[in-house]
């Protein structure tokens, strides 16, 4: 998300949205959950650069 230009990423909710669906799926096998998330496009390069600097993993 950050590398694509976003900041302030936050998952706000997760829940089982596949339970009792009409057909079976691979959802349970992979622990698939519905989620809501939000983020914001960085206001400018400075804000984005600060967010990128917080990444501790390799891209």
């Amino acid at each position: 998300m950050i590398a694509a230009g976003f900041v302030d990423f936050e998952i706000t909710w997760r829940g089982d949205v596949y339970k009792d669906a009409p057909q079976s799926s691979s959802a349970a096998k992979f622990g698939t959950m519905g989620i809501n998330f939000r983020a914001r496009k960085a206001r400018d390069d400075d804000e984005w650069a600060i967010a990128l600097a917080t990444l501790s993993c390799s891209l």
Partner: protein
Amino acid sequence: MTANIQSTLPSVSRAIEGLDVGELRRAIQEEYALVASEPEHGFHFHTGRRLAGILEYRDEWLEGVPEGTIASFAGTGNPFSVGSLHAGERVVDVGCGAGIDSLIAGKLVGPTGRVVGVDMTPEMVDKARVSARQMGAGHVDFRQGLAESLPVEDAWADVVISNGVVNLFPDKFAGLQEIARVMKPGARLQVGDILVDKAVGDKGKRDINLWKG
């Protein structure tokens, strides 16, 4: 903004090696054309009003939205629960399906706002356009297109919403970059989607049946 910093990032392909993107898109279109034409068919996901209830869509949001569009609702979350939309705002709905979230957004931003819903499945776009006409929602526009090449100008949107679609991007990074392109600086992204607790192996990532469910 993007170009300067982007050039400093390591060059890493986010595309999935060996995935037939054309076949994937055809399979997804086929599945969602069926959701448009036969929403009662029964899928590996919930649809319609039942799903809207599971995802806690408010009755006032759904009021006035044509039943055909509600019946073909197939999201996985609730983009409106993570932030408000305001009168006069411009909204892009990525993978709008039959238009439920676009039409709700149209109600929330009002006639001084604008909403563009984009979907790659013609049957869904047709259904969404019919519903917009039924609602008299002239400020809600539906366009056929891909998430990776949105038919929207640069820095147009105050808010981008999406529901159950990002997981279907063959290249998540490219799709997210494209979403960022159409957003104004500081614009909000509000998304319903899915995540998996267990990692999907390389073979699984190439399995189109797994992408479909």
